[in-house]
């Protein structure tokens, strides 16, 4: 039965993606993209990538939906939400088909991997954690993760640079307002505590089970977005010291630990096996805070509210 399930799922994913690029309606394309993300989360489960499925569910199900819908609302407010007529573009279709065909050919030309990857299984006990994905992210390829956390900060600086002069340094995004005691305000009070608990849980179990700083941080960011949009929480102004400390805490702790490794261990970002478990938990906690704050502010956008009341 599973082949039929896979075929149905893949067919739906392709149909949804086609619907997202075809037609003229911008809002429809956005809704199809939200649906696409939900289906992709199921596909990751089928591919045995639960860590990826968690990240995809939190990002596509929450943050991307919020990002694109709020942006659509802003474009509609300035009358820029309609799309000019676009006819079928044959050269583009040719390029797309060519790329698909090339990748399809590449799949069947790929050499079989030599399995099971012996180095990883051997090295896992020395990494300090049991979840191999966390071991790769925070130990074996810690360089990538360190640089990625810096990439997030860079994107955030780019978004904040879009603030207009009068709005700096205000609170990120638009001034949200809701009817006190209404459905939206009520939901904003009920969901965040539960969501925060789930996010912290995901960070904590990341060492042994699917989860980790990225998944947990994303969930916390999405919960923060819910709380902000529903008026339950007002984000602090972008120049508040605590806020800035939260942004750099993860990358900074990561970097310091990397330097410590250079002094007491075998080189930059090498963790002595005895300390690795505790260090990874500490870095993951700090990274989760930084990722959560960075992503939430990225989605909310540059300050647009009056700088100081």
């Amino acid at each position, binding site marked *: 039965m599973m082949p039929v399930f896979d075929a149905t799922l893949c067919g739906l994913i392709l149909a949804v993606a086609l619907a997202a690029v075809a037609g003229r309606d911008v809002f429809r394309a956005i809704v199809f993209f939200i649906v696409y993300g939900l289906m992709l989360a199921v596909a990751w489960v089928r591919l045995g990538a639960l860590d990826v499925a968690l990240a995809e569910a939190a990002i596509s199900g929450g943050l991307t939906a919020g990002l694109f819908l709020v942006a659509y609302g802003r474009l509609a407010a300035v009358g820029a939400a309609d799309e000019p007529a676009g006819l079928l573009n044959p050269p583009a279709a040719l390029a797309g088909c060519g790329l698909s065909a090339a990748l399809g050919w590449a799949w069947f030309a790929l050499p079989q991997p030599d399995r099971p990857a012996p180095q990883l299984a051997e090295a896992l006990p020395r990494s300090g954690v049991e979840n191999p994905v966390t071991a790769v992210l925070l130990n074996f390829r810690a360089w990538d993760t360190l640089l990625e956390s810096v990439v997030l900060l860079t994107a955030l600086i780019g978004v904040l640079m879009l603030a207009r002069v009068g709005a700096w340094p205000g609170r990120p995004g638009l001034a949200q307002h*809701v009817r006190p005691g209404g459905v939206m305000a009520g939901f904003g009070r009920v969901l965040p505590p539960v969501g925060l608990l789930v996010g912290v849980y995901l960070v904590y179990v990341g060492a042994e089970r699917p989860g980790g700083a990225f998944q947990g941080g994303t969930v916390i960011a999405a919960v923060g977005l819910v709380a902000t949009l*529903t008026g339950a929480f007002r984000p602090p102004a972008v120049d508040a010291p605590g806020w800035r400390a939260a942004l750099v805490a993860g990358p900074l702790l990561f970097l310091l630990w990397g330097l410590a490794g250079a002094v007491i261990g075998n080189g930059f970002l090498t963790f002595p096996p005895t300390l690795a478990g505790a260090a990874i938990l500490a870095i993951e906690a700090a990274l989760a805070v930084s990722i959560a704050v960075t992503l939430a502010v990225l989605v909310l956008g540059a300050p647009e509210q009056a700088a100081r009341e």
Partner: protein
Amino acid sequence: MTFWLSLIATGLLASLAGALWRVWRGPRAADRMMGAQLVGTAGVAVLMLLAPAEGWATLDVALLLALLAALAAIGFAKATSPDGAGDPEEDGAGDPEEQQAAAADTTDGRADG
């Protein structure tokens, strides 16, 4: 049992084609949004059905989907409000000026809270 559960899951996926048709067809933005909500609920159900075969940690993914399912609807409600930051329940939801006034009220009320 896994065969049966995957059969039900496949049936659920197939029924989603109807929801997708509604998203494509509309006619209103709210119709499209409802189609997306249906896919979200069905996605949670599919993940539950896969859990016995794929490992029970799959339920964590279903938990996230259920937890964040309403975020899209909140974003939609925001997008359809006149200034992009309102609430369809507010008084005079169709009138930007009244909304601005309401926003000022809320801001004053919360400034020190």
